[in-house]
């Protein structure tokens, strides 16, 4: 009986997650660029992937992306029309919503992927299971896996790996330059800020997973870069620690930062305020709750610079936002 209940809940969860991508709209998820110019790849190309294997790519007309960041970068490189399949975490840009979904990147189906007739499959080393990837290779389809990059240089490294594998290194360089530019201006902007608000990152997954992010959470470097102080790290939290009322009051954040998916899973702002201790923090009392879409905040993808700029403005009300339509969050 218990097994059945669990099974049913997870089935429902999975069914629920599929359309979740399209519900992202209300939160911060970045301004909306026009469709990038289609790129012309230089093929064939041989790369050494993260497993040390030499992989030769001869055709990029049908690409399968094994995670959201990969899909996004492929789009930005101008190869978005070639996407033949993406994993369920690929929620940006909205244009790729119609691309067939291949399931979760860690639990792929060999035959399902092969049936989409891909010419290249690309993702990072978290993709699996390994047997499935082998089976895809056995069908003659090149599979390129790049390393998991986790610091603020990640966007460039990912762009490099993907652009190289798809033979569009020039477009890759251009994209990197764009991202670097956005990043640099974000950092410069943050330096002009005079306030240094204490920001607490809360990692939430339903009512059973309520965690404070501290040193090494991934959000700490972002908060730092945006000119804030990571309250979790300051409170001595390493990685993640369970939320307690005491910890919240001691951390006394001026701003609370959460991800959209997590916030929705506990019933929105109202639900968040009901967690003991939240309402008592300066952030809670002033309603200073920031909600950023999951991929946008922590995806370490091409929108890193954009996101940091937006976050910097959000954290520092003393800075004046430029009055351009692009700056307003997507509806």
């Amino acid at each position: 009986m218990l097994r059945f209940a669990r099974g049913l809940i997870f089935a429902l969860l999975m069914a629920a997650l599929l359309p979740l991508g399209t519900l992202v709209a209300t939160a911060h998820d970045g301004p909306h660029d026009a469709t990038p110019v289609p790129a012309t790849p230089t093929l064939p190309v041989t790369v050494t992937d993260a497993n040390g294997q030499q992989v030769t790519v001869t055709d990029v007309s049908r690409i399968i992306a094994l995670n959201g960041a990969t899909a996004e970068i492929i789009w930005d490189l101008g190869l978005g029309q070639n996407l033949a399949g993406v994993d369920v975490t690929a929620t940006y840009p909205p244009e790729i919503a119609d691309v067939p979904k291949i399931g979760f990147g860690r639990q792929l189906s060999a035959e399902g992927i092969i049936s989409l007739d891909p010419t290249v499959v690309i993702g990072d080393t978290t993709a699996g299971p390994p047997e499935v990837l082998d089976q895809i290779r056995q069908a003659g389809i090149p599979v390129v896996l790049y390393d998991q990059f986790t610091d603020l240089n990640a966007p460039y490294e990912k762009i490099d790996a993907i652009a190289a594998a798809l033979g569009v290194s020039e477009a890759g360089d251009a994209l990197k330059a764009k991202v670097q530019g956005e990043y640099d201006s974000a950092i410069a902007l943050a330096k002009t800020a005079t306030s240094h608000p204490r920001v607490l990152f809360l990692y939430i997954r339903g009512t059973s997973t309520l965690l404070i992010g501290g040193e090494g959470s991934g959000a700490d470097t972002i908060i730092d870069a945006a000119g804030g102080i990571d309250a979790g790290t300051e409170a001595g939290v390493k990685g993640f620690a369970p939320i307690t009322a005491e910890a919240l009051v001691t951390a006394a954040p001026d701003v609370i930062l959460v991800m959209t998916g997590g916030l929705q899973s506990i019933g929105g702002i109202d639900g968040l305020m009901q967690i003991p201790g939240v309402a008592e923090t300066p952030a809670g009392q002033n309603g200073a709750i920031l909600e950023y879409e999951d991929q946008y905040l922590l995806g370490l993808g091409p929108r890193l610079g954009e996101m940091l700029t937006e976050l910097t403005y959000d954290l520092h009300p003393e800075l004046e936002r430029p009055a351009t339509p692009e700056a307003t969050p997507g509806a």
Partner: protein
Amino acid sequence: MISAGALLDRRRRATRSRSAASTRRVPASLLLPFLVALLLVAIVLAAGIGAVRVGPMQIMGIVLHHLGLTTDIAFTRQQDAVVWAIRIPRVLLATMVGAALAISGAVLQGIFRNPLADPSIIGVSSGAAFGAVSAIVIGATPFGLMTTPVAAFVGGIITTLVVWSLSRRNGRVDTVTLILVGIALNSMIGAGMGMLNYMADDEQLRSVVFWSMGSLGGATWRNDLAILPLIALGLIVLPRKARELNLLVLGEREARHLGVDVDRTRFLMIVVVALTTAAAVAFAGIIGFVGLIVPHLIRLVAGPDHRVLLPASALAGATLLVLTDLLARTIVSPLELPIGIVTSLLGAPFFLFLLLRTRWQHGVM
């Protein structure tokens, strides 16, 4: 107005008169060949259907090609990979796992004289789950790709041994004690898994969830051959104990009086069941209800004689899993439903029906 009590009485009497009629059973000479044929049909169907289109001629060509015979049937490299490297190992895995789970369920229902027993009762499923989850969360891979399956296997075996030893007293194991110790240990392991889930990060959690929902997607020739010896062990050894199982069902003391070495026979059967089930679970994850439901179905059709029940359950379990997996990987293609979900969705309502039916037949349980 009829009172509930009167209604229950009426139903009870009706059931008694129904079962008072002499039993109508399908004889083994008909049932077993039928099940074999059914399994073969299922295997052929499953090998032929999938997300990628491969015609029956090409399938034959591919199989013959790999068996060393050249034909002039053309097939693409893709089709070859799909049929030989993906579908056939997968169908074979489904066959082995389905047979293993079903025969183990039938044996345990006999040993515990309880129609509601299944392999999880001796702790092997939860132990395997704990082993696998530990491997996923801890993240070390001393055995490379085989780490999780090995951990699952070891976890399942160790848990069964612990349950067994805790239930021993003066060299004898009492059935009720075994069940209670199994329940207690399952709870403890559940708590342990809760801790591991708490420690896990997002990605690990996803892996854990998928493992516990079961999947035949990791089927490769190498993995299949790895578990074949243990599955074969179960399928060969267990049916030979059918006669002793019949006597055990009569009662432990009665079986002893009729010459069965109860302790040794039970120990042997539980060990073999543990090995077979742990091997099945190691690569397929947790697939529920097969071990519970299939023996019941066979009993309804062919009676409780284990000499028929065990082989028939194995065949039917294999067929069921092959067909269920076919459904799981085609119904939302290119996605795949985790097979444990499908068997639970199909099995749970049926289990409920069986449970209530047993109540009606015996009055209050």
